[in-house]
């Protein structure tokens, strides 16, 4: 980048701030805005959970009910089971199914969403089927899945995938259909090849909505992960919870539920982190108030 483009300065004054000023403005903007707002956002997000945890801790402290043991005992048991004990192997099995199921389903959703966008006749034909499968509660398919895939982890992965397809597929399709026609005219004027149109225009253009779909798919996947482990399974967190409940190990059961909550939260935050990075153009341009 050369600094020698002298004629630049004069016309830019007329346009508003010069380039240097724009940058400074932006940086100071970010500096003055971010620390305060981040702290506030974090506080808004965590104050209620903290209050509830504290309430739980104190209200359950002297509990003698076999169904609601003191939180201190649950945490102690959680440490024994999930950190020292063998329960972490259940976690590994669950996470593996979740990962394969989610990634597989999301990939299918993304690919078929794109195909349905690209080929409108295909879209018209498959529209009723897609919505039929979308509204069908995935757990209802468990018995069919058992018949199809047996009771192994393949069945679990298949069901998680099935549930993960639809939010991603529908959001991908919708996001791509929402891209401004002028951007496609521009692509034609620039003579972009079809693969380039896909990767330079269609996917980034639909990016924010695809991300929304992927996130909904992730939530569905976590739910289905637990559900599949609770029916005819021999491992996983769902199996662990159900098993503990059957033998009246209520405290142990609670540790499983706690672990699930942690998985859900961590997965969600990881997702948001990646999304904010990949779509940083989107969040930054929105923060600036332009489109």
């Amino acid at each position, binding site marked *: *980048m*050369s*600094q*020698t*483009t002298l*004629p*630049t300065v004069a*016309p*830019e004054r*007329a*346009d*508003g*701030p010069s*380039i240097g000023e*724009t*940058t400074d403005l*932006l940086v100071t903007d970010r500096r003055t805005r971010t620390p305060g707002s981040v702290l506030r956002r974090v506080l808004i997000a965590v104050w209620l959970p903290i209050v509830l945890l504290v309430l739980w801790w104190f209200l359950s402290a002297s509990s003698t009910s076999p169904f609601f043991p003191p939180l201190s005992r649950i945490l102690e048991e959680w440490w024994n089971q999930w950190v020292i004990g063998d329960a972490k192997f259940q976690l590994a099995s669950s996470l593996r199914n979740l990962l394969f199921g989610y990634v597989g389903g999301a990939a299918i959703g993304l690919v078929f969403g794109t195909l349905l966008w690209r080929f409108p006749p295909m879209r018209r034909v498959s529209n009723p089927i897609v919505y039929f499968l979308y509204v069908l509660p995935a757990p209802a398919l468990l018995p069919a899945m058992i018949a199809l895939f047996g009771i192994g982890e393949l069945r679990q992965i298949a069901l998680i995938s099935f549930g993960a397809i639809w939010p991603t597929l529908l959001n991908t399709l919708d996001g791509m259909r929402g891209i*401004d026609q*002028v*951007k496609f*005219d*521009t692509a*034609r*004027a*620039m*003579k*972009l*090849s079809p693969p*380039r149109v896909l990767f*330079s*225009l269609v996917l*980034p*253009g639909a*990016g924010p909505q695809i991300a929304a779909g992927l996130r909904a798919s992730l939530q569905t996947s976590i739910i289905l992960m637990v559900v599949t482990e609770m029916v005819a399974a021999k491992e996983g967190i769902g199996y662990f919870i159900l098993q503990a409940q059957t033998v009246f190990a209520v405290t142990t059961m609670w540790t499983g539920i706690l672990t699930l909550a942690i998985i859900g939260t961590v997965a969600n935050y990881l997702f948001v982190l990646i999304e904010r990075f990949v779509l940083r*153009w*989107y969040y*930054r*341009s929105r923060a*600036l108030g*332009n*489109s």
Partner: protein
Amino acid sequence: MSQSTVSPTPSAESRAAGSEVLSVEGLRKIYNEGKPQAKTAIDDVSFSVTKGEFVCIVGPSGAGKTTLLRCISGLAKPSSGKLAFEGAPLTAVPDQLGLVFQDYGRSLYPWFTNAKNVGLPLAARGVPKAQRTRRVSEILASVGLGHVEKQYPWELSGGMQQRVAIARALSYQPDLLLMDEPFASVDAQTRFDLEDLILSVRRDLGITVVLVTHDIDEAIYLSDRIVVLSGSPSRVREVVDVPLGRQREQVATRASDEFLGLRRHLLDLVMPHAPHAA
């Protein structure tokens, strides 16, 4: 380009066929052709543009100016008529055509930096990365933008964004630059700056420009010839020569007698029943 191409009343036949960049003959565009709701947007439009010329297309609003531009850029298919770009029949957007749309907010890709936006048509043409980077800086400088490569379009002012869009259209050195109301979305001061920018770019690069506008003053200030369209469905009402020479200056040119005379004549053409503007 020499001044002689701007001489008064050059008929289409007198222009050398070899240097003809764009020729439009009997162009007609009917939307929903053959259906009850068929609408003729363009009835019969013929004109041609020679190499190095600056031609503006003006007409009353709703005259199908944008439709005409979409047809001559190859984005839309005409219902009938002949279109040729550098002698070859025009069926798709030609390689050597640069397009600038009215709304930079809609035509630029907000997910790419300015450098990536400008370099996109170069990448599509297989220009190697190092060469691309150099070319992008060069062309950004030539539209009066320095070191904005790493910024995003939405971090710039409207006028600067339109400069990025112009740089993108110029990056692959097209023979013809086609612009659809390119300065309609910016404020008046920026508009003057961009008008002068496009005149200087045209002088430096010797590029042929066709610009669609509804602004008669802008058309006179910029062009060598003005194609005046009638209201919908459009026909060519008149092709007006603008013998103002190559050197133009916002204040002096716009105040000159020739300019005002042309302005009155064009207003008469565009608004036939309106009283004469003072």
